[in-house]
Each structure stands twice: as structure tokens, then as C-alpha cells.
């Protein structure tokens, strides 16, 4: 079976999933996956529960926010850059208003209350 390589960036405390369990600044790991893999498959290989991540990017496009993760089935391709942020990260609305998002995220944001103005999207927001 053909494999793809995903350029994976892990920030803050998530850097521990990059190979060195002591690392807490950032880690950059090239992850090999079978062709046809999805974001959930990448999480599985990293050994990271999806609840541990917050803001997520696929090729610089916003794909998840705390409490809103429409990207688990997003297909990955060879050379994709995926970045995972820890739950203490933040991205206030005014500094992300109009950024590019994967289609699934764009749809999910529009369906939220208040059209995505908040910092977190879980029912009991804001939550760590």
C-alpha cells in the first residue's frame, strides 16, 4: 500500500507527542500514514486523544477549535502540514475573522450560535 507523509507540528504541551516526551515548546514530526488516511488516523498514530487538542490547522486552514472538531474525517494527502495546539492557546475572534478554513469547519462555524464569535464552542464553554 502506498504511504503519505504528513508534516506534523505540535505546540506547547502537545510537543510531547512528537517523539520526545519531555519536550514542551514545539515538535515537528514527519508522520507516515497509509494513503487514504484521515485526521483521526494521524491522532491515533501520535497517541493523542482528540480532546487534548484545541485549535488545529490543515495546510494553514483552520480545521478545529476547542469544542468544535469537524475535521476528524478530513482526508489527508502527501505533504500536508497539520498543526495541533494545546487547550491553553487562544485566538480571539477579531484576529481570526475572515481566515481560511477547511470546508467542514466553515460549515460548522456558521451553524454555531452567534456565528463563531466565541472562544470555545462546547456547551459548557469555556472549558479546558
Amino acid at each position: 500500500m502506498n504511504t503519505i507523509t504528513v508534516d506534523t507540528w505540535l505546540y506547547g504541551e502537545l510537543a510531547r507527542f512528537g517523539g520526545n516526551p519531555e519536550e514542551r515548546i514545539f515538535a515537528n514530526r514527519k508522520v507516515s500514514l497509509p494513503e487514504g488516511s484521515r485526521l483521526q488516523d494521524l491522532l491515533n498514530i501520535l497517541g493523542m486523544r482528540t480532546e487534548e487538542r484545541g485549535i488545529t490547522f490543515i495546510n494553514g486552514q483552520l480545521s478545529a477549535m476547542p469544542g468544535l472538531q469537524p475535521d476528524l474525517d478530513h482526508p489527508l494527502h502527501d505533504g500536508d502540514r497539520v498543526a495541533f495546539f494545546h487547550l491553553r492557546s487562544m485566538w480571539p475572534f477579531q484576529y481570526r475573522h475572515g481566515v481560511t478554513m477547511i470546508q467542514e469547519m466553515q460549515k460548522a462555524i456558521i451553524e454555531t450560535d452567534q456565528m463563531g464569535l466565541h472562544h470555545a464552542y462546547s456547551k459548557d464553554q469555556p472549558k479546558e
Partner: protein
Amino acid sequence: MYLVRVNMTNRTYQVTEVPEKYKYLAGRALTSNIVADEVPPLAHPLGPNNKLIFSPGFVTGTSAPTAARISVGGKSPLTGGIKEANAGTSWGADLAVMQIRGLIIEGQPEEKDKFWGLHITWDGKPKVEFFDATAYTKQPLSKVYPPIYEKFGERVSVCSVGAAAEYGYCNSGVCFNDQSKRPSRYAGRGGLGAVMASKGVKFIVLDRQGAPGVEIADKALFEEGRKKMIDALRTHAITKPKGGLNSYGTAILINIMNEAGGLPTKNFSSGRFEEAPKIAGEAIFETNKVRKGKEIFNHACSPGCIIQCSNTVYAEDGSEITSCLEYESAWSLGANCGISNLDDLAMLNHLCNEYGLDTIETGTTLAVAMEAGVIPFGDSKAAINLVHEMGKGTPLGRILGSGTETTGRVYGITRVPTVKGQSIPAYEPRAVKGIGITYATSTMGADHTAGYTIAPEILGVMGKVDPLSPEGKAALSRAFQATTAFIDSSGHCLFIAFAILDIASGYQGMIEEINGVLGTNWTADDVVKFGAEVLKVERKFNEAAGITKAADRLPEFMKQEPLPPHNTVFDVPDEALDAVYAEL
């Protein structure tokens, strides 16, 4: 409450009750109204007819949390328009405790080389004395603050300007002490430091001893509001103890903006900096942990702040390099200059504090100089030398001190990231289009603090517009700018917006605090109306100063040069930009 009017032509002062007209104005609302009422729009910003106004917010000096902001206003030498810049400092709280709603510095001494200090004390009402401060000029601020504390006592608060202001630089800020008496809290943008220096004022020292404190009309209501605000700040993930801001500071945004492709890099030629993780909040926190042998959480810049987002950067030997290295400073002096050496970056920030320079304008200016070939991108040692040139007042230093736009003009550079003469901060409008609208239309020139998001239910636009359409973005920008003008008048730090956006009771708490202080019955709707009135006043002043809607545009290169990695241009139509104020 008092207005204290200091005339520097003859070093006299007047203390009057706040007139009825200004009774319900404070902070930015007051500084902007006094500028509009008293400064001729065509006055030279460094001439005798400009004025410098200080005003604490409504709840500054009370026990409200995270509320020690001081607004500084005047006509800006950088933009030529109205300017309000604010800082968090005990100085703001002390001014409020001395019941000074507005301190107005006007006139100009005839002697050009002499500088003065103002010593303001409480003697039944505010009392101003003048002292010769000429001996303290042309020195790093960390050298002159200690003797001032020695002279006036440890309890005073100190406002000052650095050498940059004494030289009349358009990128000089007004400096205030932090909680450790560092000269490090800046009302940085727009060159108001040079306005203060043009009045011959080097220091304003406040001694609050014996002062009565802020009068609170309805203490029970104030207390109720204060508790709601504290609860909101203490529970929200971003603002709570050991949360995002308390751990990583504002530089927590470096990696996020970099991954989004919106971190302006090497003079806005890319949206991604390969070495960004080395200068991010996470790197600062972990580097400090190694160098100090323990986790160092951030500290408060001012009394009563429970967010506590100010970091300190320590050297390998454990000594302090600088405090505080904000996101915008780490970006401007770091990524935007291609610099990733954290120690050198911290030193650049420190030198800006020493000389009294706005870190944002300084970084964007250095990057334009790098593009011009004055020094290479990424050369941190050469960048440090250029900041020293500014501090020494050499001819090159004076060019750079004039700001990004002037430096671009001097070197014939076309990629000059400014709006209304003020450089664009750390969020690339080609990647973050919503903020591009605010940069373009703000009365302040490009300003990342002009459009904070607060409670959507009061914005009056939700459900009516598509927030992703140009019209929707314009409507949101208008609402954000108005509500921000209100927070800038409240005395609260803008970062309360993070918590009160998500926690409705916190938002209600802010209004109750202010109603408690003033004895008013303002509602959520009044917040937007109040802010809109401030914007109208500012807009009118700018128009009379020659800054019309034609200036509500981003620089041309942003419409033409695609920004990697997304390779997008700023494509929000001019009609959408014009719509922001058309409906105000």
C-alpha cells in the same frame, strides 16, 4: 472630580471641577472630546497649540479587577490625526484616586533645551509643583527612574518620556512604571511621547498620599458588578490563573498566527516565519523554566489585575533581559525582521523601553530598513545597533525614529505597511481579512486594539448579516470599534473582552460597575451608542485635519502582492470599507 490644566508656557496650573459636559466621560471618551474641543485640527502636533490629555477610566482606581488603564490623548505627530493610546499602570489608578478625571498639558516653554518634572500631590485638592528635570534627559529610562523614586519616595507613580521623545520622534511613546518600578508600561503608539516632550515635560510624578479615592455613587451595585467581573475573569480559560495569558503571555499568539499564515514576516513579504516557534510564548515560558529552575507564571502590570499576563525574559545566567515581551513586540522586532534569537529579541525590546520607542513602529521601521538593504534581514546584532542609533539621535537614527512610512520614503521602498501613517501590527490583513477592515477604517491609523469582540447579543448585527461577507465584516467592524471605544473609556484592560464575550454575567458586571460609580442606568445598548459617539467625535476631528475616507485604505501592495502561503491579496472592496462609517 477635577480637571487639572497645566500651562507649560509659564508653568502655572488650574484645578477646576469637571464641567457638566464631561461629567459622564472618562478615558478615551474624555481625551478625544477634549482634543476635539480644544486642539485646532490643523495645529502642528509638536507646536504650542496641541495638548496632551491624560484620563483614567470610569472604574480606574476602584477595586474593580484589571482596571488600572490610563488613556493618553492628543494630536498625533505620526498620523496627523486624533490619537488615544493607553497603558496599564499604578499611575492611572493614582490619578483616579486623586480624583483627577483629566490632566491637560498645554502651551510650550520658550526655552527649548530645558525639561521639567511635575510633582502632583494631594493638599485638599490636587496640587502641582514643578522641578527642573533637564539633568535626567538623554539617558536610558532605567537609569533615571531610580533617582526619581529616591527623590520623591517609594510610593509614587512615575510617567516619563525617553530620549526618543526628546528628539521629537514620531515613534516615541509615553512611559509609565509597572508594579516593580520598571519604566516599561507604554501608551506606545502614535508618537504621544514627542508631544509630551514638546511641552518640555520629562516626568509627571504622582503622590497619592492622603487622596480621598474614587467616589462611588452606588456601592452595592458597584460591588455586585465587580464580583461578576471577577468571577468571569477567574473562570475563563484565557484569563484565569495559570490559563493561557497567565502562562504564556500575549506571545501565545505567535505560533497560532504563524500556522494560519497570518504572521507578517520579513516586512510583510510572507505570512509564515520558519523560525517562529523559537520566539513564541511557549518558548519564552519553557526557556525561563530552564534558566530559573522553576515555572515562572506571568505578573500583573498594574494594581488589581487578576489576569496577570506580563512576562519577563531571563538570560542564561538568570538575570532579567526585559519585561514585558508582548506578542506584537515579539512579532515586530522578531518575525517581521526575520529575527529568531530570543535573547537578542528581548534586548531589542529592552532598548525600546530604555529609549522610549514604540516597539511596533520600531520593528516595522527596522524591517523596511532591512528591505532597503541598510542591514540584512535576520541580523539581530545589526538591528540592536540601529536601535542604539535611534537612542543616540544620529542622522540615521532620526530617520528611523520618524517611523515606518518616513523610512520607506527616504529609501524609496514601496512595500510600506502603514495606514494613516501608522504601521500595521501583527495580524496580516491578507490572511485575516476582518481585521484589515478595522486597520483601514480606525480613527487611529492601523491599530490592532481598535476592534475587540464583545458580547454578540448587543452588537445589533447578529443574524442580520453574513459575517463572512464584506458587508457583514464591515458591520461587525463598526460594532467592534464602538464597543472597544467604550472599554477604552471604562478603565478596564481590553483583555476583559475575552471573558465577557463568553460569559454574559461578566459583561453585565462591567456595566453595573460603571453604573455603580456614576449613578447612571446605562444598559447594554448604551455601550454601543456611547462608543459610536466617541468614534464620531474622533472621525470629525480627523476630517477637519485633512484625513478623509480616502485614507481608509490599506497600502496598495496588499491588493496586488499575493501573500504566501495562501497566496491571497486583500480583496475587500472599497465600498465595504466606506460602509463602516457610512452607517455610524
